[in-house]
């Protein structure tokens, strides 16, 4: 069963967040990633029903989640329940835990992990070509990566959200910059798990040890100004 990994990449926030998943999650999942121009509704419709997990990065609001250039991927009342039935869904996006998450659960998704307010962090725009090297962004985004790896290890959604929240708390404790610290605490307080806390997916093989020596794919697409 493939993983649906939808990674928007057209502006600084989507570039930064997708960069961390390109580096840390993409190497351990099957090659059906909907990256950049493929992060659109039609490819999602085709691949989602076959997957057991949907992981998405894109801009969002209370009722919807969008892909590349804000094309709508999932919106309350405007998708086929087959796309989400029986799946664990993680959306790194703003506010999707308010109305979209409950709607996904109502339409048969097993578990939903998202946020009930904006997802905010500080990144270094000078590192847009190699976003995975951004240590400032890593304080917020690595807990997300750790949580996704927990899910891909076959552990429960409850364990995954605890890993994420603990990661924010741990990083906030040692963070000297008050703005970064505020962002970490804000994201921690807004992370939610809806549906079945025991929801889990098939475990994916762990990454072979030397994978960090392999450079990630070059990012060539310009960002929208």
């Amino acid at each position, binding site marked *: 069963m493939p993983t649906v990994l939808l990674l928007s990449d057209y*502006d*600084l*926030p*989507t570039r*930064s*967040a997708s960069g961390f998943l390109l580096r840390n999650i993409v190497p351990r999942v099957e090659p059906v990633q909907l990256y950049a121009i493929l992060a659109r509704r039609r490819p999602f419709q085709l691949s989602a029903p076959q997957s057991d997990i949907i992981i998405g*990065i*894109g*801009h*969002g*609001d209370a009722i*919807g989640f*969008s892909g590349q250039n*804000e094309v709508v991927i999932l919106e309350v009342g405007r998708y086929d329940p087959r796309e989400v039935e029986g799946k664990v869904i993680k959306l*790194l*996006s*703003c*506010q999707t835990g308010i109305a979209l998450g409950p709607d996904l659960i109502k339409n048969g998704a097993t578990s939903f992990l998202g946020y009930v*307010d*904006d*997802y*905010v*962090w*500080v*990144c*270094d*725009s*000078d*590192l847009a070509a190699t976003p995975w090297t951004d240590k*400032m962004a890593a304080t917020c985004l690595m807990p997300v990566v750790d949580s996704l790896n927990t899910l891909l290890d076959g552990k429960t959604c409850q364990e995954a959200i605890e890993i994420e929240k603990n990661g924010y708390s741990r990083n906030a404790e040692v963070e000297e*910059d*008050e*703005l970064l610290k*505020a*962002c970490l*605490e*804000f994201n921690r307080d807004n992370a939610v798990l809806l549906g079945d806390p025991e929801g889990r997916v098939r475990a994916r093989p762990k990454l072979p040890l030397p994978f960090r020596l392999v450079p990630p794919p070059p990012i060539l697409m310009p960002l929208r100004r």
Partner: protein
Amino acid sequence: MTELEEWEKVKQALRKPATPEAMKEAAQAFAKYRVVQLTKGKGSKPTLVTLGRGRGYPNAVPVDKIPEELAKNPNFFNLMKRVVK
């Protein structure tokens, strides 16, 4: 004045409703806080980003431009109010 004291001033300013006076006060307080932070020699171009859609504020605001955005945009002021508790 220490960093923490400067940050406390930012927090106090953000607790007020989004009036032009409060927005200006928050902008000034944030600018002072960043001056203290920048003296620590953190290079690069830090930018505050969000994954919101149609929220009435930019998705990416360079940290040195936060005071400007705070002073002119009540939606951004309200976002910062929620983030900085």
